[in-house]
């Protein structure tokens, strides 16, 4: 069968010739085999022994409840009473009480696999976003090594502008948290809560500040104060003059 892409392909069911491929295949398939055995034990209460010798001569084994126990049981089949007794006992155990720790581990495994599924879905969405963006084909979204001198310089300055915004925003982010926390506390002190909300609205409402207004028993938050239009006239005038001077 001829395929257009090198995705998952069916392989010929015979001894592999390539040595490194053989090792990788053994490792993957051994894991898959043990996985199937483990699931079969969980789902049906069976007890399974697997022994596999690797191409390099190492031995891998899986056993539930344990390799040694199953080997011992397999090697001593003639004790009929023991077999019957164990069979009944085994049946009883399976019916009434699965291993609690194994069930716990299986639950964790199920959860991890579900999370993986979510991340894979998310990756598909992100891939679609990237694909639609690349179809537009803006020059600045090319790979870095495809840019020329002017493009690189312009992209650098644009990114530095974004970076400046970011740094300023990060700085504000810290203060905003503190300011909100502070205002929350003062609101609690007032007690009713309504007064706090009103004050908060007044703080946010610029140019409505009355310099003669008195706030009894309340200290307004520090970091929003100047944005209400409170200006120091002398400093302000001096600054205005100096700024105009710099402009000319």
């Amino acid at each position, binding site marked *: 069968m001829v395929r257009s892409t090198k995705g998952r392909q069916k392989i010929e069911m015979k001894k592999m010739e390539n040595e490194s491929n053989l090792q990788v295949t053994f490792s993957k398939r051994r894991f898959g085999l043990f996985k199937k055995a483990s699931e079969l034990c969980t789902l049906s209460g069976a007890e399974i022994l697997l022994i596999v010798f690797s191409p390099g001569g190492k031995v891998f084994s899986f056993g539930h409840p344990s390799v040694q126990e199953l080997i011992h049981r397999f090697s001593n089949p003639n004790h009929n009473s023991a077999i019957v007794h164990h069979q009944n006992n085994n049946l009883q155990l399976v019916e009434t009480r699965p*291993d609690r720790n194994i069930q716990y581990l299986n639950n964790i495994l199920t959860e991890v696999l579900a*999370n993986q599924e979510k991340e894979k879905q998310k990756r598909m969405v992100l891939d679609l976003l990237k694909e639609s963006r690349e179809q537009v084909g803006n020059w*600045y979204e090319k790979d870095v090594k495809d840019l020329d001198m002017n493009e690189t310089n312009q992209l650098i300055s644009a990114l530095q502008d974004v970076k400046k915004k970011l740094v*300023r925003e990060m700085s504000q982010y810290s203060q905003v948290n503190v300011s909100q926390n502070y205002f929350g506390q003062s609101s609690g002190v007032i007690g009713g809560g309504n007064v706090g909300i009103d004050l908060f609205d007044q703080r946010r409402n610029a140019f409505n500040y009355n310099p003669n207004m008195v706030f009894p028993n309340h200290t307004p938050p520090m970091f929003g104060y100047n944005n209400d239009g409170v200006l120091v006239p002398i400093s302000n005038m001096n600054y205005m003059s100096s700024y105009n001077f710099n402009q000319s």
Partner: protein
Amino acid sequence: MKRKMKLSLIENSVSRKTTFTKRKKGMTKKLTELVTLCGVEACAVVYSPFNSIPEAWPSREGVEDVVSKFMELSVLDRTKKMVDQETFISQRIAKEKEQLQKLRDENHNSQIRELMFGCLKGETNVYNLDGRDLQDLSLYIDKYLNGLTRRIEILIENGESSSSLPLPIVANAAAPVGFDGPMFQYHNQNQQKPVQFQYQALYDFYDQIPKKIHGFNMNMNKDSNQSMVLDLNQNLNDGEDEGIPCMDNNNYHPEIDCLATVTTAPTDVCAPNITNDL
């Protein structure tokens, strides 16, 4: 439609037996494929509640041979790669968690990249981001800028230059970078002088902050925006000296600084009122 099978004992006994039969067949098929492909020896023994006689693959004699070979090994060699179901599931959980973390990292990286291009085009506003995204985006941009800088070096070595100007990234390239923040709702009613107004706002803002906070902020700005800091210093020096706080080189923790600020707030807040009343 294949249904997601819950990893626990199947309650219905008929369904359990059916599943056992099918899956046992599948497992032995996988064992056969492994032996054929890799040319190795292997065996399986299955005890089940549904059959009093254990099932052996490839045959009873085959299992005996493999078990004998197994038992001839030293105890160390036998137990080195031996797992029971509990151990195997634990190993599998660790492997899958590693895979999950890898997926998460990849997705986060893709998200940050989309975010960066969004900011470049003006589609995304940095003010809407939370603290962690801000930091991650900042780091990503730093790495990207490093890549661009290396690109410049390569181009200089090759002596390349191009006269064609690239298209602008943002449609409104002349938009000023304002001093905006979620908690500081500043309304600019003087449309004719936006830049001047913004600098005025910035100056007033710093004038109201006590010395310690000011030092903290200046340190932050100094690390990443040297030219802007120089401009501020120049403007500040031209103003009245008495009201300008000194720059403190120490880096204060914001929480502690703000607690210290609270104790001095009444004095600072009263001053403007007195000035305005005169």
